[in-house]
């Protein structure tokens, strides 16, 4: 087991952790905006970390370049999609969650 394998394992594990916490957050968070935040973490942090972990294991230059391109694409589109979702919800008048309101209900 080389240092590269260890580094890749750490990145893969961190990515999976982000994916799992993002999934839990998506189910457990109280309102639309916080849930969007959890989902955003999944594609921005989770997927990109997993891709970087795979990049360290890439067998040849071609696969490495492809993985890098996918990671770059996800880094641009993921947060943009999250932003668009939140923005559209705001335009549509979705209320931001506050603890007081939650207790009243």
């Amino acid at each position: 087991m080389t240092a590269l394998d260890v580094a890749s394992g750490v990145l893969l594990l961190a990515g999976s952790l982000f994916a799992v916490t993002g999934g839990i957050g998506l189910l457990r968070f109280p309102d639309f905006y916080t849930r969007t935040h959890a989902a955003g973490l999944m594609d921005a942090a989770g997927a990109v970390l997993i891709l970087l972990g795979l990049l360290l294991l890439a067998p040849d230059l071609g696969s490495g370049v492809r993985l890098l391109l996918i990671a770059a694409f996800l880094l641009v589109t993921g947060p943009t999609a999250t932003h668009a979702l939140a923005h559209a919800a705001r335009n549509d008048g979705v209320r931001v969650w506050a603890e007081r309101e939650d207790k009243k209900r």
Partner: protein
Amino acid sequence: MSTFDLAEAVLLGILIVTAVAITRARSLFVAAMLGGLFSLVTASLFVLLDAVDVALTEAAVGAGISTVLFITALALTNSREATTPRRRVIPAGLVAVLATAGLVYASFDLPGVGDPDSPVQTHPITDTYLRESQEDLHVPNTVTGVLASYRGYDTLGEVVVIFTAGIGVLLLMLGPRRPADEVKDRAYLQTEYRVLRVVSKTLMPFILLFALYVLLHGEYSPGGGFQAGVIFGAGFILYTLMFGLAAVQRVLPMRTLVVLVAVGVLIYAGVGVATMALGGGFLDYNEFNPGNPSGGQVAGILLIEVGVGVTVAAVMVAMFYSLVRRGVRR
């Protein structure tokens, strides 16, 4: 249970849950989005089964363009599903259950995944396609070779189907334009989404470049005219969503699109006529380079893939334009 089986079982599970959720969803917007998810999971299943060409098509058409077309169409109609009268639920449910039972019963006759004794594996044509295509065509991606050369007639038929469907939609949808005040309303919305506009504008050249890569590299890697056309169309649809119909029509007016819908089919059929003029049969690409038949094949396949791509892209964008022109019903 191998990892493959596990992944397949999980994906099939998601597929079933999505399908049930679609039938339960009252809001048609939700149903359309779930339909996109359904296609994406199907595409993942195709990847698992090593059918990457089909997966690419499913992801681009099913998850991408159809979802956008559905949602644009929903903007023109009522977005709530009408409730089915109770007396019709039971007979409809009965039909659904019987049809499902029939399909499940028929599925027992299908060979298992990777079964070496299945007709697909034992029939001599498989060997012919996989081995001889490499010598006949020198096209590494056998799927492209089979679709574009051995089965060139079928693919021409498919392109004509897309052409006909596109013309049909255009004839139905090219009605009155949206009123001017709604255009202004939309322009206001567009200044709101600045991040989206910057990102989509930055991505636009890469999307079009990727479409060209999928088109021209289809002989070596998954892809070809259909997928490239859809990705190309998706680029223009994204631009229309962000910047409005007027902006994109300055680059690609409706009139040009309608011509392009026909031009693609003409390129494809023209290749066939050209090979006949050169003394061969219809779509007999060897005639392009009699000294080096496989070189002629590569040239012919590339030409017809361009034809396919032009028609598919033009039909997709034209359908989207014709829906957007009708405006939004509130």
